[in-house]
């Protein structure tokens, strides 16, 4: 799976308005819902599913990256968003570090492999030297999209 399969220009948030974990998740869900014109499920229900997942164990997987994800009934494909936080978000990440880069992934309930492939895509990229650094330094949405595109081309 490529970034372009689940993150599009419209769901890239250059600077998140919020710093609180739940507020950030809500902001990203609202973005996905508005871009894809999803009427159901309700924002609150999706946020609740994502927060419930966070309670089991943080999706802050290190390198300042978090991958909040949940399975959402009614979806046919994986829908994602990317958001940046300059100040960093307290995500209770495994390495304790604040999170600056958030990849929110909403997956269809019956497609466990799609969820894994989206997580694979993110994890493959963030272990590459400079990927996170470039994402943090990108000046605008265009540059962020370009970094994803380049990463898609470099990894099969």
């Amino acid at each position, binding site marked *: 799976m490529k970034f372009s399969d689940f993150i599009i220009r419209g769901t890239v948030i250059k600077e998140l308005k919020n710093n609180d974990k739940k507020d950030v998740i809500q902001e990203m869900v609202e973005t996905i819902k508005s871009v894809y014109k999803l009427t159901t499920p309700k924002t609150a229900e999706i946020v*609740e*599913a994502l927060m419930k997942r966070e309670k089991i164990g943080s999706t802050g997987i290190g390198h300042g990256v978090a991958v909040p*994800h*949940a399975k959402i009934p009614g979806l046919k494909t994986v829908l994602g968003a990317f958001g940046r936080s300059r100040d960093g978000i307290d995500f209770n990440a495994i390495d304790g570090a604040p999170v600056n880069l958030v990849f929110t992934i909403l997956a269809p309930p019956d497609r*466990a492999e799609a*969820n*894994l492939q989206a997580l694979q895509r993110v*994890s493959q990229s*963030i*272990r590459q030297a400079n990927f996170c650094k470039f994402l943090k330094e990108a000046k605008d949405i265009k540059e962020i999209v370009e970094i994803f595109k380049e990463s898609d081309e470099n990894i099969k």
Partner: protein
Amino acid sequence: MQLEKDVKITNKLGIHVRPASRIADTANKFKSKITFIKDGFEVNARSIIELLTLAAGQNTAIKIKSEGEDAEAALQAIVNLIESNFEEKNNGNKKRDRGFTGD
């Protein structure tokens, strides 16, 4: 000491974030180096991010390599964890209320 074992991932959702963090936690408890190999691709089991790059779904065959003084205990702990389906209570057999799940 170096040991190897072939296992199959049996939990319904495969090695997603939570199982990956369980594996990494377990691997970090031992001195031995634990390596997961899928289709010839090797990753360090101490790293969640490395494990996630495998995208190992249900029924994926994995070779686990354990190298070090406590290789046997380390390998056994990892195999036990996989065979327990990562203690996921719900492996899709039960009906979930409203279908919202965060795995």
